[in-house]
């Protein structure tokens, strides 16, 4: 991968147009569970879109409250996923309810995929997926089936943008910590 020279360029906003299918055909990197989607100025990410099993909509709102509680109770419970942001949406197509789960993170999903499966089980993130059509019933013991579902329902981007491209959440947190420490130091010097 040729990501090294890009990394210092955080000050220069960047956009990337992505070919149909989500990959740059001449430089597809193979991951353990299949080809890896490219890193973009908006880092790695996925958008999973799937149909809800009819009648299960209330579960999604209950689930939202549960996740809110889980993260409040243990703020680092999703740390393994190396996330920036997650967004969940519900919407209708021709009267059917659909669910979208969009994440932006710093490592390609393939790398820590088993850890993600474990997190799903531990935090209750799974409960919402079990209300989607086609989600494998044996996902807990069958990482392969889980990954296949995610890959089958992932809609790759055709365009991504980063105001501060390629910067990891860890680097942002480090910078903010440094800023806080520096302000504190200046205060102490008054």
């Amino acid at each position, binding site marked *: 991968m040729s990501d090294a020279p890009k990394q210092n360029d955080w000050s220069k906003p960047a956009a990337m147009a992505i070919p149909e299918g989500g990959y740059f055909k001449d430089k597809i990197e193979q991951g353990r569970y299949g080809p890896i989607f490219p890193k973009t100025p908006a880092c790695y990410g996925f958008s999973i879109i799937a149909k809800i099993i009819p009648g299960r909509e209330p579960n999604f709102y209950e689930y939202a409250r549960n996740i809110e509680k889980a993260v409040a109770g243990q703020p680092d419970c999703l740390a393994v996923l190396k996330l920036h942001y997650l967004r969940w949406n519900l919407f209708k197509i021709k009267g059917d309810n659909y669910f979208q789960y969009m994440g932006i993170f710093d*490592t390609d999903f393939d790398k*820590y995929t*088993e*850890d993600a499966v474990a997190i799903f089980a531990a935090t209750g993130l799974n409960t919402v997926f079990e209300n989607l059509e086609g989600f494998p019933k044996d996902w807990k*013991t069958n990482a392969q089936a889980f990954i296949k579902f995610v890959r089958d329902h992932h809609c790759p981007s055709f365009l991504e943008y980063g105001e501060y491209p390629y910067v990891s959440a860890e*680097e942002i947190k480090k910078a903010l910590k440094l800023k806080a420490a520096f302000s504190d130091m200046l205060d102490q010097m008054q």
Partner: protein
Amino acid sequence: MLEFDDIQYILLTRAPAITGRYEFLSFRNAAGGRAWLAAILETVHSVQQARASIEKDNRWVSVAFTWNGLQALGLGEASLASFPEEFKQGMVARAEILGDTGANRPDKWVGRLASAELHALVILFARDTAERQRCESEHHRLVMKCEGVEVLSSLDLVATPPFEYAHDHFGYRDRLSELAIEGSGDEPRPGFGGSVKAGEFILGYPDEEGSIPPLPRPEVLSRNGSYMAYRRLQEHVGAFRDFLRQHGETPEQQEFVAAKLMGRWRSGAPLVLAPHKDDPELGADMQRTNNFNYKEMDPHGYAVPLGAHIRRMNPRDTAANMNRRRMIRRGAPYGPHLPEGTPEDGKERGIAAFVICASLVRQFEFAQNVWINDKNFHELGNERDPIIGNQDGTLEYKIPMRPIRKKITGLPAFTTMRGGAYFFLPGLKALRYIVSLGTAR
């Protein structure tokens, strides 16, 4: 309860051997292959047998097969299809995932290890050279008797001096990461976070998730079996010593650089516990040499650099689900010892090791793909494992120090992958089942 009378000894026992030999076989004829297996089966120890007579035995034998090998022996289509995808594909097809590219790529491998004709492997460990040679001739006679069985290549293993403890050609102490499997009778040592569930290594038992994952069929074939990834890694001792001299003026400074690449002094003493000065006694003390963590004791890598070999291969408390990534390592050095002060002689020497686990994709391939070869492991940006990562001279290695870190650019490759394969290591009942495939039912 683990079935010690069925599990091949190598999974749970270490033979007191100082030499050994691997032979890589091909079967041109299923019946001939099964005849070979029927005969060699008599010499394969179970855990129970090995433990009962480890003092008086002089040789220990293990047998394993590639997916192509199982096919060549006549295993049915449904059974073949039930094996995991990565094992079916084999190590050659997984080269890019494993970092076996550039100088490490399969078309440069030796011993016909990259060939689809590689079907089986016999691992021999022997108490001395005379016993190894005796077994070699005995096996040669057996192979000659079995139709269509061909030895593709072999590799002799020899311990390198000094002989008091296991170490590689670079001089680093080996066998420090011996984990304990629940139910094996082995006591977990301090620093391992307790014993690991048997299902992480042996098929048919609950794993760390508390369940038994889907296994190859029939059960008699998979139960008490395991997977092995073979890696023949050449060690460039001359280049390694040149590097140490280039980055350290005195022998002490050179030892320090060697320690910083590994995360341990060559004696085995971990830098977290002995940051400034070697402590060989600590290195050899199995009760102490692993008893440390990173999150509290070395979060910034001032002792063990964030990209050091031992920090990548076992990130301890800085990785999630560590017990889902554990591996058993077996193997030995090969090739002639290069005495200190002797210039590089161009002869191949290295380490020929097996990584044993219940899931190649989740354990072995994860370690290769993420821990060893992810350039951005721990946000390092432009590094790979300094000892066994894919190095092409363009990457760097950062050693955190106060007030400013030392950054080595253009790190050379100290190792080159010379060949490897994925094997299935069946239990003894499964070996007998394979032998029986030819008989009419």
